[in-house]
C-alpha cells in the first residue's frame, strides 16, 4: 500500500501537546531524491513533526513510514535498523561536547560498522572534508567551533553512515547570510551528488528560493500548501501571502 518510490510518508498525523491539538491530520510523502522544505510559523509544530518522523516522539494518531516501514509499529530493534539509513542534523548541531569533531563523526561508524581504525580514520577525514571543514578542525572540541562550523560538523556526523535520507532542523538558523547561503549550496551539492533525499524544517526564505525542490506549508495543524516554491508563493492564503511578502518587501528596498 505504500508507494515504493516514497522514502518518507506521513498519513494523518495527529499530535496533542500541552492540552491542544498541534497536528490535526498531517499527510505528505517525499519521493527519492527530492529536497523538501517544511515551513510554518513558530509553534506550528515543524520540529515536533520532524521528531515524529525520526522516531523520537510518538504521534497520537497516524502513521510515519520510512523506506516503506511504519516506524511506530515495527518495534525498537527494527526502528534502530531504519535509523541507520537516515541522518539527522539538529538545530544546534547537537555535537557531543566531550568529544572532538573527528570523534563525533566516528561515533556512528564505530557503533554500526566493524571497520578497522585505519579505514575509519580515513572515512572520518573524508567526511570532514566533504562538508568543507578545514582539517585542523578535526581535533577541536565543539565549544571551540563557530556556529557554522558546528553545523558542518553535525552534517558530517549525519552523513557518516552514507544515509539515503537526511532530516535537518533549521539548518541555517543562527548563521550569517553569507554562511547560510554557503551552507545551502553545500547541502544542495551533497544532496545531488550523494543522491540524498532531504526534509528540512526552516524559516529561511532564501533557502526556499535557493535550493529546495518542494515546499510543504504547515498551518493550523494541517498542510495548507504543497508544491514547488513559486506555486506555493502564489497560493491565495493569508498566512502564505504575509510569509512571502515579509521578505520580498525587504528585498526590493
Amino acid at each position, binding site marked *: 500500500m505504500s508507494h515504493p518510490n516514497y522514502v518518507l510518508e506521513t498519513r494523518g498525523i495527529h499530535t496533542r501537546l500541552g492540552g491542544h491539538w498541534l497536528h490535526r491530520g498531517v499527510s505528505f510523502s517525499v519521493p527519492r531524491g527530492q529536497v523538501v522544505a517544511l515551513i510554518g510559523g513558530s509553534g506550528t509544530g515543524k520540529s515536533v513533526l520532524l521528531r515524529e518522523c525520526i522516531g523520537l516522539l510518538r504521534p497520537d494518531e497516524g502513521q510515519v513510514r520510512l523506506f516503506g516501514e511504519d516506524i511506530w509499529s515495527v518495534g525498537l530493534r527494527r526502528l534502530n535498523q531504519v535509523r541507520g539509513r537516515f541522518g539527522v542534523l539538529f538545530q544546534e548541531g547537537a555535537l557531543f561536547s566531550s568529544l572532538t569533531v573527528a570523534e563525533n563523526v566516528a561515533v556512528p561508524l564505530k557503533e554500526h560498522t566493524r571497520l578497522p581504525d585505519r579505514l575509519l580514520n580515513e*572515512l572520518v577525514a573524508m567526511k570532514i*572534508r566533504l562538508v568543507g571543514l578545514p582539517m585542523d578542525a578535526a*581535533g577541536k572540541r565543539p565549544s571551540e567551533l563557530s556556529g557554522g562550523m558546528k553545523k558542518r560538523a553535525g552534517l558530517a556526523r549525519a552523513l557518516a553512515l552514507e544515509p539515503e535520507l537526511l532530516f535537518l532542523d533549521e539548518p541555517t538558523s543562527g548563521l550569517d547570510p553569507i554562511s547560510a547561503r554557503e551552507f545551502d549550496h553545500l547541502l544542495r551539492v551533497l544532496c*545531488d551528488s550523494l543522491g540524498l533525499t532531504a526534509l528540512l524544517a526552516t524559516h529561511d526564505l532564501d533557502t526556499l528560493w535557493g535550493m529546495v525542490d518542494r515546499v510543504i506549508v504547515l498551518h493550523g495543524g494541517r498542510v495548507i500548501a504543497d508544491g514547488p516554491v513559486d506555486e506555493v508563493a502564489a497560493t491565495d492564503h493569508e498566512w502564505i501571502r504575509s510569509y512571502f511578502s515579509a521578505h520580498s518587501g525587504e528585498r526590493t528596498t
Partner: protein
Amino acid sequence: MDTPGLRCSTDESGCDLRLSGAWCIRHLEAAEEQLAGLKVPHDQPVRVDARELTRLDSAGVMLVVNRLRALGVVWSNVSLHHFQPAQLTLIHLVADRLDARGRPRHRKRHPLRFLGQWSVDLLRRFLAQMAFLGQIVQAGWDLLRRPGLLRHRELTVQLQTVGLGALPIIAMMTFLVGVVFAFLLGIQVQKFGANIFVVDGIGLAVARELSPLLTAILVAGRSGAAFTAQIGAMKVTEEIDAIATLGLSPIQVLVLPRLLALVITLPLLTFVGDVMGVLGASLVAASQLDVTYYTFFERLKSVLPLNTVLFGLYKAPVFAAAIAFIACRNGFAVSRDARSVGAYTTTTVVQSLVAVILINAVFAVTHPEIPD
C-alpha cells in the same frame, strides 16, 4: 552479487579497472582487500569501468581515489566509463574535496611542553582564584557600607536549602556516629570498669572533632556540589552574563548570599550535630554501659567545658567560607559545554573536602591544649 570485486588488466595503452558489486560502506573492508594487491603503472592512463557496478557511495569513491593516489596515479590520468551521471558527480565531488587539503596533522606532545603547560595552567588558576577572592572581599566591603545591597530573598532561599534541608541528614548521621563511637569506646572502657569515662571521651570527640568535621563534609558534598552545578548551569545558559548586563554584580547576587548562608548555617548545623551525637552516645551508655541518662548528663556537665564546644563551633564558619569559596569559584570557571559542569562539580567536592580536612588539621596543631 553485492560483494565488491575488481578485475585489472594492463596493456600498452594503459590499465583497465573493472569494478563490480557494491562499493559502499557496508562492504568497505572487502573492497579494500580487492584494492590491496593492485599494481597500476602510474605514468599510463587508467580506465575505470563501472558496467558491473551495482552500488557506489562516497566511502567507496574515497577508497578508489585514495588507493589510486597512494599508488602514484595522477587523478587527471584516470578516465571513468559507464558510470551513471549521479555517480560521476559523486566521484568528482569526493575527488575534489579529498584533493583540497593535506593529511591531518598530529600534534606531538613533548614532556617538557606538557610540564610547561601544566605550570602555566596552575599559575593561571591560582591568579584567577586570587582575583575571585578579591572580588568577593570587595563585594563584601560594599555590602558592609550599603547593607541595602543584600539580596534578602536569595539569602533566605539559600538559608532554607542549605540549612533546613540539611538538618535531617546531619541529625541522623551525627546521631549514628555518636552511637557507634560510644559503643566502641564503651567496649574499651568496660575492660577497666571505667564505664563513666565514656562520657569524657564522647563529649570531647563529638564537640571538638566529629560534629564539626562531619557536618562540614556533608555540607561540602551536598551544598558545595549544588552551588557549582547551579552557577555552572547558569554560566552555560548565559544567565550570568545577563545578570552582569542588567547592571548587577554576579558576586552580589549569586556568591554572597550563598557564602553568608553557609557561614550562618554551618555553626548551627554543627551545634545540632553536637546535640545529636551526644544523644546517640547517651542511648548506648544507658542501654549497654549501665550509665543512666541522669548520670551521663551530670558527668557531661562537669567534664565538657564550654570552651571545647565553642572551639568546635568556631571552626564551622571557617569551613563554610572555604566550601562556599571553592564551590562558587568552580561554578564560575565552568565553560560552555555539558562535560564541564560535571568536571567542575567533582572538583568542588574533592577540593572542599581536602580544604576542610587541612583547615581542621591547622586548627588542631595551633590549638593543641585540651581544657579540662
